[in-house]
C-alpha cells in the first residue's frame, strides 16, 4: 500500500477510535456504577442506552420541543436531557423491581437469592426491547444534525495527508468527557459520592454510619442509567438505531467495565475508550466481520494477562 494512504488511514482510525472511544467510555461509566460498584449484573443497560436515543429523538424531532435550538445544538441538548428522564425511570425500576432482589435486602442473607436479579434484569431488557418495538416501530431512526456530515480537516503534516474529524462526533466526544469528569468529581468530593462508595463497599457498616443505603443505591442506579442514556443520545447524532440496538452494546459495555477494573469510575471510562479504540483500529487490518471478534479477543487477552482489569486492585484477606 502507498505509505501516504496507509498513514492517512491510520491517523483517521486513531481519531475515530478516540472520539468514539470517549463516548463508549461515558456509556461504560453508567454500567460501572451499577455493575462495577453496586455489583448488579444489569442486562438491561443496553436498553437504557436505547431509551436515551429515543428520548432524544422525541425531544428533537418528533415533538419538536427543542427545535428552537436549531439543528446544530438541539440534538446535543436532547442527549443531555435524556439523562434526567432515564434517571427517573432508573430510580423507579430500582425502587419497585431490582431493589427487591439486590442491595440491602440480600446483602445480609448468605443465600443465592441475589442471582434472581440476573433474570429480573433480563426480563426488564425484554420488556424494553419489545415494548420499544410496539411503541417506536422497527424503522431505523436518527437524530439528524447537519454536523454529522461535516468534518474538520487537518492537513499538511505528512505530504498531502488529510485527517477528517467528524464534527458531530467531536462535539459528542467533548460532551462525554465533560460529563465523565463532572461525575468523577461528584463521586470523589461530595457527600453523596462518598456515601455511595461506602454503601457499595460495606452496606451494613454504611447503615451504622447513618447512610440511607437503599436511597443511595436507588440514586446510584438512576445515575448509572441516566449516564448511559446520555451516551446513547450522543451516539444517536451519528448512528441510526432501532429498539434492538442495546443488545449489541451491552456486551461492549461489560467488556469496558471489566477491562477498566470493577469498582473504578475512571477505570470504566478508560476501559470503554480501549474498546472503542480497538474496534476502530481493527478496521485497518481486519475484514468488517472480524472487527467485533477482535474486541472480544483483545478483551480476553487483557483480562487473562491482568485478571483484576487495567486499573483494578484485588486482594483477598485470609
Amino acid at each position, binding site marked *: 500500500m502507498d505509505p501516504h494512504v496507509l498513514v492517512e488511514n491510520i491517523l483517521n482510525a486513531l481519531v475515530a477510535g478516540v472520539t468514539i472511544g470517549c463516548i463508549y467510555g461515558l456509556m461504560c461509566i453508567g454500567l460501572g456504577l451499577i*455493575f462495577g460498584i453496586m*455489583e448488579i*449484573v444489569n*442486562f438491561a443497560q443496553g436498553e437504557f442506552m436505547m431509551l436515551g436515543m429515543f428520548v432524544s429523538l422525541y425531544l428533537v424531532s418528533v415533538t419538536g420541543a427543542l427545535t428552537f435550538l436549531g439543528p446544530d445544538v438541539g440534538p446535543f441538548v436532547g442527549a443531555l436531557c435524556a439523562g434526567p428522564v432515564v434517571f427517573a425511570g432508573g430510580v423507579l425500576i430500582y425502587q419497585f*423491581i431490582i431493589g*427487591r*432482589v439486590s442491595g440491602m435486602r*440480600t446483602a445480609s442473607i*448468605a*443465600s*443465592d*437469592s441475589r*442471582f*434472581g436479579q*440476573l*433474570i*429480573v434484569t*433480563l*426480563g*426488564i*431488557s*425484554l*420488556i424494553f*426491547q*419489545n*415494548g*420499544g*418495538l*410496539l411503541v417506536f416501530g*422497527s424503522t431505523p431512526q436518527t437524530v439528524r444534525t447537519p454536523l454529522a456530515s461535516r468534518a474538520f480537516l487537518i492537513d499538511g503534516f505528512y505530504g498531502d495527508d488529510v485527517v477528517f474529524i467528524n464534527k458531530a462526533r467531536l462535539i459528542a466526544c467533548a460532551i462525554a468527557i465533560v460529563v465523565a469528569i463532572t461525575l468523577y468529581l461528584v463521586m470523589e468530593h461530595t457527600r453523596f459520592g462518598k456515601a455511595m462508595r461506602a454503601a457499595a463497599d460495606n452496606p451494613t457498616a454504611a447503615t451504622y454510619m447513618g447512610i440511607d443505603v437503599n436511597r443511595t443505591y436507588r440514586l446510584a442506579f438512576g445515575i448509572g442509567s441516566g449516564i448511559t442514556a446520555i451516551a446513547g443520545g450522543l451516539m444517536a447524532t451519528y448512528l441510526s438505531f432501532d429498539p434492538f440496538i442495546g*443488545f449489541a452494546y451491552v*456486551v461492549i459495555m*461489560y*467488556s469496558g467495565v*471489566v477491562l477498566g477494573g*470493577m469498582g473504578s469510575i475512571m477505570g470504566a471510562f478508560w476501559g470503554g475508550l480501549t474498546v472503542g479504540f480497538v474496534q476502530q483500529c481493527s478496521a485497518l487490518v481486519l*475484514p468488517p*466481520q*472480524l472487527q*467485533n*471478534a477482535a474486541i*472480544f*479477543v483483545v*478483551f*480476553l487477552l487483557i*483480562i*487473562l494477562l491482568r*485478571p*483484576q*482489569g487495567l486499573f483494578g486492585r484485588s486482594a*483477598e484477606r*485470609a
Partner: protein
Amino acid sequence: MRHGAAVRLRRDGIALAAIAVMYLIASSLVHNSYYQLIMTLVPIWAVFGVSWNILSGYGGQLSFGHASFFGAGAYTVTLGLVYWDLTPWIGIPLGMLVGAIAAVLIGTPTFRLRGHYFALAMLAYPLAILYVLEYLGFQEMSLPMHSVHPALYIQFRDPRFNTYLAVGLLVLGTMICMLVENSRFGLALLAVRQNELAAEAAGIDSWRWKMRALIVSGMIAAAAGGLYACILLVVTPDSVFGILVSAQAVVVTLFGGLASLWGPLIGAAILVPLAESLNAELGNILPGIQGVVYGAAIIIIMLAAPEGVFWTIRDRMFRRAPPPPLIPVLRPAPLRPEALPADAPLLHVAGLSKTFGGLRAVSQVGFSVQSGEILGIIGPNGAGKTTLFNLLNGVLPADEGTATLAGQTMLGRKVHQVCRMGVGRTFQVVRSFPRLPLIDNVVVGAYGAGLSDHEALESAVAALAHVGLHRQSGTPAGQLTNKDLRLMELARALAGRPRLLLLDETLAGLGRDECNDVLDVLARLRDEGMTIAIIEHTMHAMLRLADRFVVLDHGRVLASGKPRDIVEDRSVIEAYLGKKWLTRSASANPSPATGGKQ
C-alpha cells in the same frame, strides 16, 4: 459416595423415572407437529440447563458463555453431516469430545479469574467464535436430508421419536448430575463455591475440580447442542453460539432453582412452552407484545421466588427436620499418624520474609516447633502473624527463606498441597460452608487428605466427637454459634489427620466460658500428642496452653522462649504486653507452670 447418598439416589432415581415415563406417555398422545416440537425442545433446554448447573450451580463458577459448548456440539454434528456424511449418532459423541476439548482450552486460562470476571470472560468466547464462523462463511447451514435410512441420521419420519431421544438424553444428563451431587465431586464443588480458600486449606484442589466440572458440563452441553441441530435441521452461528443461547441455560436453571437437581427441569418445563406459545399466540397479532408479556412473567415469578421455584416451594412447603446425628460408634482413629525422633523439629522456619510494596510484613523470621509441642505466636496487631501463616500454608508466596515440615519444604506449594503434607489450618474469620450440614463441612477436610469414602466419614465423625460436636452433625453450619463454628473448623482440620495444626486466633470473639471450652479441646489434643502453632491475643489463655512462645513485632521475631521468660522480657512488655501487665503480673502472679506440659 457421600453420607446418605444411597437414600437420595433411590428417591431421585424413582422420581426421575416417573417423570420420564409420564412425559413420554404425554408426548406420544400429541399429534400436532408444532406442539411436538415444543415437547422436544423442553428436555433439550433442560439438559443444557443441567450442564450449566454442574459448573455454575454446584461449582459456583457463574458462566455467561455456555453457548461455546452447545454450539461446538451443534456445529460438529452439522459440519460432519454436510462434509463427511457422518451420521449424528457418531457426530453427537464426537461433538461431546469437541466440547471436552473446548472445556480444557477455555478453562485453562479462564479459571485464573474469579467471580464476575470469570462470568464475563466466558461470555466473550462464544461471541468471538460466532463472528469467526460468520467470517468463514458458515452463516446458515442446513442439514442434508436422508430419505433412505432416516433413522440412521436421526431424521425420524415421526417427530415423536425426537422427543423420546431428547428425553433419553435428559435422563442421562440428570443421572450424571445425581452422581456428581452425591459423590465427593459434588461436595468438593459445593465447598469450592461456598468458600474457595477454606476448601483449598482443607486439601481440595479447587482448580482440578472446577476443570472436571467444566469438562463434564461442556460434554453434556455439546450433546444437547448436537441433538438440537438434528431437530431444527438448520444451524446458524446466532442460533447456537448467540448470547440468547447462553442466557437460556442461565435462565432455566436460576428460574427453576440453582444447584438443585430438578431446577433446570422445572425451569425448562415452564419457560420453554410459555415463550413458544406466547410467540405463536400473540406474536402474530401485535409483534413485540409476546416479549413484553414473557419479560413481565419472569420478573413477577422471580420477585415471588427469588431463589428459584424449587427452593422456594421446598422451603415454604416441606420444612424438614434436620437429619439425626451420627453417633460415633466407630472407634476414633488415632490423630497423630507418626512419631518423629524427638530431636528433629517437625516444623522448621528460617529467614522467612515477605514484602508488600514498601512494607516488610514478615522479615527474617525463624523458629521451630518440636513434635508434640504447642507454640504460641503472639504480637501486636499488624505484627505479621497471619501473614506468617499465609506464607506457611501457601496462600501467599514467600520472597525468601525456608520452611520445612519434617524435612520436606513447604514453600512453593499450593494451599491444598501443603494441606496434603499434613498441615491443617483454621482462619481468623471462620470460613465455613454455611449451607452444608456440619458433617459435610468436616468430611471436606477428610476428602482433602485423600481418604476413601468410608475412611473419610469415619475420620470426620471421629473429629466431630473429638471437639464435642457429634450431636449436631446434621445442622447446617450457617446455624451454628461462633464457638461451634470455631470447633467445626478445628474438626475439619483434624479430619484430614494432620501432623501440624496452624490455628489463627481460634479464641477470637469468644466469651470466658466458651473460651475455656475451646481451650479444653486444645489441651486434650495436646495430651494426645498433636503439634500446634497457635496465634492468639488472650495472654492468659496462652499461658495455660503454650509450651513456648514466639513474639513477633513489625514482622520480626522479638523474642522466643519459655512462657515465664517471655512475660518478663522487657522488650516484649514494651512492644506488646504493656506496663500494666508488669504491675498486674507482679500482684496476681499468674503461674505459667500450670499450663506446662504434663
